[in-house]
């Protein structure tokens, strides 16, 4: 099949970018979307042009590195999947496909389709952990955790940190990402000791990074490759307000 691409090209963060058109023939419908980009890049290199820079690593939907905004949607038209899990058979012969990087103040463009998502790391550093040193843990079965609670924690914990929620949100809000981590720790007994300070610090860091506020449009959850639920955002709101009203931190 043949596809026409409009790809965002930007040399680095200090220069302006623009959409550049390419067209590719002989694309197999069985190719993954990123393999189609490999083909494009091989052609560009042969011509002596700069290949398109984009983030990718595991190419099986778990590392969270790939991050393309395809035809107006984070990770493209498929739901519950990352860019690397998208295949060309989701498009038709002759389609024009617009590919842009994630857009958010907190995710500055590094080059072409590649953005800097270290803001997420800093949010986790603000409190997304249980403070337990290596070697000090009691026996794993010392704490019984009801299966429903463990499942709920797992639902939240499976976030891959790709940033599609931010990319899809009209406000570039990181609420789904942050709440998934807050929620994961808040439901587990292990997370109780730092429950309040965690919610307070992680939200403060989220705001400091320049993410927008939540308008509860639900776009984040729809575009999330792991379909993480909006319930976690509600829980974080609850956790944060409860913490602010009752914690010892003035």
């Amino acid at each position: 099949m043949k596809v026409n691409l409009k790809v965002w090209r930007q040399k680095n963060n200090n220069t302006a970018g623009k959409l550049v058109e390419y067209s590719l023939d002989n694309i197999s419908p069985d190719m993954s979307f990123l393999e189609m980009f490999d083909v494009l890049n091989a052609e560009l290199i042969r011509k002596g042009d700069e290949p398109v820079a984009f983030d990718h690593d595991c190419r099986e939907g778990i590392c969270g590195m790939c991050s393309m905004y395809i035809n107006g949607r984070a990770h493209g038209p498929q739901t519950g999947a990352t860019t690397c899990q998208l295949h060309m058979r989701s498009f038709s012969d002759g389609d024009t496909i617009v590919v842009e990087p994630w857009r958010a103040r907190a995710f500055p463009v590094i080059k072409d389709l590649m953005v800097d998502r270290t803001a997420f790391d800093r949010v986790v550093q603000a409190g997304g952990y249980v403070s337990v040193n290596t070697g000090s843990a009691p026996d794993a079965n010392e704490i019984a955790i009801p299966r429903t609670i463990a499942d709920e924690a797992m639902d939240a914990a499976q976030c891959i940190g790709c940033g599609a929620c931010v990319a899809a949100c009209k406000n570039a809000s990181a609420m789904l990402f942050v709440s998934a981590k807050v929620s994961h720790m808040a439901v587990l007994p292990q997370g109780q000791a730092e429950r309040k300070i965690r919610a307070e610090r992680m939200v403060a860091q989220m705001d400091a990074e320049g993410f927008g506020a939540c308008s509860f449009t639900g776009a984040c959850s729809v575009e999330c490759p792991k379909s993480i639920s909006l319930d976690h955002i509600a829980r974080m709101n609850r956790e944060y307000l409860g913490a602010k009203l009752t914690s010892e931190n003035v």
Partner: protein
Amino acid sequence: MKLEAKIPEGPLAEKWARHKFGLKLVNPANKRKYDIIVVGTGLAGASAAASLAELGYNVKAFCFQDSPRRAHSIAAQGGINAAKNYQNDGDSVFRLFYDTIKGGDYRAREGNVYRLAEVSVNIIDQCVAQGVPFAREYGGLLANRSFGGAQVSRTFYARGQTGQQLLLGAYSALSRQVANGKVKLYPRTEMLDLVVEGGKARGIITRNLVTGKIESHSAHAVLLCTGGYGNVFYLSTNAMGSNVTAAWRAHKHGALFANPCFTQIHPTCIPVKGDYQSKLTLMSESLRNDGRVWVPKRKEDSEKIRKGLMKPTDLKEEDRDYFLERRYPSFGNLVPRDVASRNAKYVCDEGRGVSKTGLAVYLDFADAIKRDGRKTIEAKYGNLFEMYEKIVDDNPYETPMMIYPAVHYTMGGLWVDYNLMTTIPGLYALGEANFSDHGANRLGASALMQGLADGYFVIPYTVGDYLATIGPADKVSVDSPVFKQAEQRVQDQIQRLLSINGTTPVDEYHRKLGLIMWDYCGMSRTEEGLKKAKKMIQELKAEFWSNVKVTGDNEEMNQTLEQAGRVADFIELGELMVDDALNRNESCGGHFREEYSTEDGEAKRDDENYAYVAAWEYKGENQPAVLHKEDLVFENVKLTQRSYK
């Protein structure tokens, strides 16, 4: 060179405890005077960096990904083994030890493997305390499953995402230390050289992948936690960025590389579709519990299927060859990974493979669905079937799945002693990057265990012994000539790559190398083939350095340049793998030499002559590597031939 494994004396079960007591300690007030570099932030790297920072050392952690959380440990699906015996089914530290030694075809050290089994129980405790949401029973206690043909249920899991959850646990511990100021993170930074001075590792040279800046980092010790080298085959289940560069450049400075030919081929991967294929996807081994593996009996039927003239479901029962059940009546479809993989290759080599490429066999669930109902199968494998359908666009409930083996894990790696120290003092290798614990074949759900054992529970003890010996003053400044020279070397290589300005993209060399390795140093190897491969690799290397095309500059984000450096190292490693495979005149685990097999094609191990670790020493560009042998001593297990008939 005499290889000193430093395995402690005494009874197996007391070795580690005795050794720990014998190790020197660093005074708590002095720990802050030591700097440690950790390269790689997967399970081994993140757990080591966090644990060492908790002790009070100053840690610098490097990864080429944009965040430590993305390291490829994240992709492990199945689970993590631990000898907890929570299921009351007869598991013990000794049994896990025994299974690992036997599963590794008796090519691993008893002392290391026993320690691994011993600390496996602490790993689960640690991870649960961090908040890792392992699967649980309704009563709230931890659930286990049997994995990879193990006779006991000792595998802990978190849905199909155990690796991800364990890594996120280690990443959270690491993040806490970053917040405490004890770890400084360097994401999107690649190690390009090791700095050795006075015979000790002194630091590393890195390239900032965003700006291209070459930087020096000095430390008292350097830990390589850089994973395996499966991408030497181009197509593998490894992440696209997984590479051997850090380990290989350390090897060039004198770190011996052990058993490079021991690679694991996983039988249940989604087959290759076309030349554009960039990466292979693994499907959980658990599928073989219910799926039956077959190909058509006759070549003609396979041909018809390949051309789309016939559907597999149309083929009559008597025209199908359930080759694993036929050859291994007692284990059937559940034979170990290496045996299942090799047999799939044989039937495809005979021309009986399916799919357009002819490189696939069926994994059929029709009988299981008939027996247990679609609901049961859906509950067990629903997500895997969905993943398969997403990639292949076939519905496995209606037509048999297609699978083919793919490179998955590398048991070989940098040679390390019992302290995980390489042959360069101050340089350590942890996790898949070292060779130590899996012998010639790794058991399912043991990779996660080893990475975390090394990082959480071994290195925090052993690195202290070295640091206490050298003292805090024994450090080299980044302004010293040895660092400047190393920076220059790295600059020179980059300039060389950029200035070739040939015609062929890097990818193509990588693909060619992968094909050579797969054809001649893959599932089954022969002396003739290996010799041919060696020559082909040498030619490929020459062509690479004269005709590769690397676009752009150093002073920017340049993925082509990154890749070029990695492929250059893979080519050299490929040659060493071939040397190692040629040297090992036996078949064991993932290494199968056709000349050394029984009449019906089963592996023939040679314990008399090859019960050793082959550790290779680099002797310079285009010079033959020198082999050093570390004899393996077995005092607690009896060496037996594996049989699955």
